């Protein structure tokens, strides 16, 4: 008797989650947890809820490096969510190859994604063997230098217009007790900053030769040596940034404790949440003001293969909601990223976003490193650059040698 009631209680606890999860509830996992990001994701949830379904938010704190292992182990472990964020490119490649992800080609043809998604490389990154597996939601570019106007005023130097001026202004900032360049301790930040320096200083062609063609001779060559020289400057200027998370580092710029930060355009959301205005309180330099090129990496939603038919239908609805023009505008304005379709009106975009749109229209774009390199090579790069930025005794020459080895071994 006692045993039976116990079993009943157990069954109830097991049944409860199923009871809550109605057929049209869709759990969506993502790692958008900073202020600006959370505001943006709320727009997506609102748009999806308006279709009569329910967005069950599965935010995972601690940036992609923490969130992706959780997402992947849920999918491979047989407990898939309704939809999940990845940076499109190679992060979900093997999940797709293993047949764990859902083919979205039907939705994509019906809604004509091939025509509306601009630039086309975004959809290419979602395409594996001719089938489309993800819905891109935004374009994120890494190549931005964010500057605090207040910090430069305090140091008594004009706000720099490019990387060289910024490096030259370093000593003045330091004298005023300001950290010239904020670089957070998370490994991906150091690696990302280096990629930005590379495209700004060595240019688009060298970037493509190294990361797309994996040419180790170029990686060991003179052009990249210049980039390492600049990274050495960046390392010197970033001394004293004792913070971990990227948004804490951005906050140093917002509060004028740091002069600038090399960070993707997602940093813009933080400036917005803090009530700052582009051009007045902060300045942005795409391509570090040297080479105005932006990468078109970004976020996309992938949909695990589900058995529940109702949920599968809800997945289709979500996929088309994500690319809906209205959702695109509302989401990207809050997020500080660029929309994936060229036909939407972004009249309310701020200065920095307009700069980004212009560069995009000119076609000065490169693929992001997440699209070009496997997660394994990216991790090795992160190990290298987090060591390089933290350890002043590591020479640029040594670092370049190891960088070339990573490129040589990349697949």
């Amino acid at each position: 008797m006692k045993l039976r009631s116990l079993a009943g209680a157990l069954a109830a606890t097991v049944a409860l989650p199923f009871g809550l999860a109605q057929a049209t509830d869709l759990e969506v996992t993502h790692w958008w947890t900073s202020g600006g990001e959370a505001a943006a994701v709320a727009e997506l949830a609102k748009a999806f809820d308006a279709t009569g379904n329910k967005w069950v938010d599965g935010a995972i704190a601690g940036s992609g490096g923490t969130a992706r292992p959780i997402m992947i182990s849920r999918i491979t472990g047989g407990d898939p969510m309704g939809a999940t964020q990845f940076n499109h490119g190679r992060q979900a490649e093997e999940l797709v190859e293993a047949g764990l992800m859902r083919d979205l080609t039907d939705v994509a043809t019906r809604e004509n994604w091939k025509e509306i998604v601009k630039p086309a490389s975004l959809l290419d990154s979602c395409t594996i063997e001719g089938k489309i597996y993800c819905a891109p939601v935004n374009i994120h570019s890494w190549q931005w230098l964010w500057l605090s106007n207040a910090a430069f005023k305090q140091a008594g130097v004009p706000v720099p217009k490019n990387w060289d001026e910024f490096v030259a202004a370093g000593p003045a900032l330091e004298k005023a007790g300001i950290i010239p360049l904020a670089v957070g301790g998370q490994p991906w930040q150091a690696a990302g900053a280096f990629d930005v320096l590379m495209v700004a200083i060595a240019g688009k062609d060298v970037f493509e030769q190294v990361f797309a063609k994996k040419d180790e001779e170029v990686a060991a060559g003179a052009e990249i040596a210049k980039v390492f020289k600049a990274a050495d400057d960046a390392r010197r200027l970033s001394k004293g940034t004792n913070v971990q998370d990227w948004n804490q580092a951005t906050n140093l710029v917002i509060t004028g404790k740091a002069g600038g930060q090399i960070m993707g355009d997602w940093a813009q959301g933080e400036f917005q949440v803090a009530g700052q205005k582009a051009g007045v309180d902060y300045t942005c330099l795409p391509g570090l003001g040297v080479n105005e090129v932006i990468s078109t990496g970004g976020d996309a939603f992938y949909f695990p293969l589900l058995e529940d038919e109702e949920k599968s239908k809800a997945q289709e609805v979500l996929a088309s909601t994500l690319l809906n023009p209205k959702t695109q505008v509302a989401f990207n304005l809050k997020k500080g990223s660029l929309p994936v379709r060229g036909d939407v009106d972004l009249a309310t975009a701020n200065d920095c976003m307009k700069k980004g749109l212009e560069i995009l229209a000119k076609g000065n774009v490169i693929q992001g490193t997440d699209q070009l390199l496997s997660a394994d090579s990216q991790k090795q790069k992160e190990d290298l650059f987090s060591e390089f930025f933290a350890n002043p005794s590591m020479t640029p020459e040594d670092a370049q040698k190891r960088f070339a080895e990573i490129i040589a071994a990349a697949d």
Partner: protein
Amino acid sequence: MTALTRGSGRPNQWLRNLNAKIASIPMILTAVVIFLGGTIWTVVYSFTNSKLLPRLSFVGLDQYERLWAAPRWIISIQNLALYGFFSLVFSLVIGFVLAALMDQKIRFENTFRTIMLYPFALSFIVTGLVWQWLLNPQFGIQSIVRSLGWESFSFDPLYDADIVIYGILIAALWQGTGLVMCLMLAGLRGIDEDIWKAARVDGIPMWKTYVLIIIPMMRGVFITTLVIIASGIVKVYDLVVAQTSGGPGIASEVPAKYVYDYMFQAQNLGQGFAASTMMLITVAIIIVPWAYLEFGGGRKRG
């Protein structure tokens, strides 16, 4: 072992205490399938080029070659050696000294014991966070000492690549010595009062009694403690994640973190398995001699 040498005329050893043996079958199966099976699976796949998902395409020793060429792995091993050596020495010494002091029939012994053991009740994550704050130069020990007037005081081990591992060691010792003390205290309580009386009659100084008589008598306790500490050292992970996430740079990386990062973040299972196999070998190097000393050769324990 003796079960295998039959034929001495005694009844079959396998059938002795049959009920107990049947009852332990599930646990034996669990141990064999999960522990042994999982271990063998991991070792086998460490010779493959498995990426995100395991697949059986063998690449020989490639993963191991890459592992031992990776600066981060070398730093992890060095850190583990430093951390291991000092945490072993200090937790044994401090633990024993505390236990010996506690054994002097002091007042409020229960209270002190509770206080000393309390940190052990906290998880490594909490310990790590507490010490991350304490050692943070902006609002930890350094800022308190500076606010007391010693302006040039500088103490920020977690932000100095050369000494960061000692910052982690401090937190580990704070957390772990209480347990060592309790184990030692139990050992000391197991020593017959008459030994102390005899030593006193012979006029042997107290420290000499401890070093030459009591400690050799506590051999069993020491070995158990050693194994507990050593296995804790090899698997250290959460403390590092909470305190420094391996930083600054890669200065405080440890092997367990390498395994996790490469298995899940880098989506390279083969590399992670190779690293975890190396960790298994380390554990085996520690456990096997102990098991031999404790159970081997049929000699009686100390």
